[in-house]
């Protein structure tokens, strides 16, 4: 198993554009969580999905949305990009809804210009 995979690796967007980030969990894992990590900060929780339902939401504006597909992969969408959205976006998967042990992906580096 390759572990949690994320695509793309890097992305450059312009202010006002929209972006979609993708995540594939470890096989058998039904929970996917998304985090934003700004340089010099710890990961900040955005969403958790379990069995295709939203099970947790952090303090992010409605420009951020996500969904989980029947195969448990997930997409994170960000609309109307701002310069402040530039960050590393991490995806993590876990077997259970409680994230006692999360497995993180390598992240997608988003740069907004």
């Amino acid at each position, binding site marked *: 198993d390759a572990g949690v995979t994320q695509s793309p690796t890097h992305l450059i967007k312009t202010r006002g554009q929209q972006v979609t980030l993708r995540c594939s969990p470890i096989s058998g894992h039904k929970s996917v969580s998304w985090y934003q990590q700004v340089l010099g900060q*710890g990961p900040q929780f955005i969403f958790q999905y379990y069995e295709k339902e939203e099970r947790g939401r952090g303090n992010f504006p409605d420009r951020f949305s996500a969904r989980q597909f029947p195969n448990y992969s997930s997409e994170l969408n960000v609309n109307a990009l701002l310069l402040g959205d530039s960050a590393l976006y991490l995806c993590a998967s876990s077997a259970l809804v*409680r994230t006692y042990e999360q497995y993180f992906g390598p992240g997608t580096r988003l740069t907004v210009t």
Partner: protein
Amino acid sequence: AQRVTQPEKLLSVFKGAPVELKCNYSYSGSPELFWYVQYSRQRLQLLLRHISRESIKGFTADLNKGETSFHLKKPFAQEEDSAMYYCALSEWHFGNEKLTFGTGTRLTIIP
């Protein structure tokens, strides 16, 4: 609101010396706490969680509810311990979870 504080951004320790990475939290309920580690060019990974009370790679962490702390300790530092360490707190309400990370401490072991 829950909060996790790691007061040291950087910590340098000589090889063989004891290590203590500090973590304090603010949470009104019963906390679930974790330590995550990120080695150079590797992914963030779970180091240990307080609920299992286990020792991983020689590290231990004890939850002190009175002091609201969850400090990470190791009696004898090794060079391979150099990494970024994050303390995290899990809040669970009615089937929904929120995980809060601290800002991290970069630990450097001096040979």
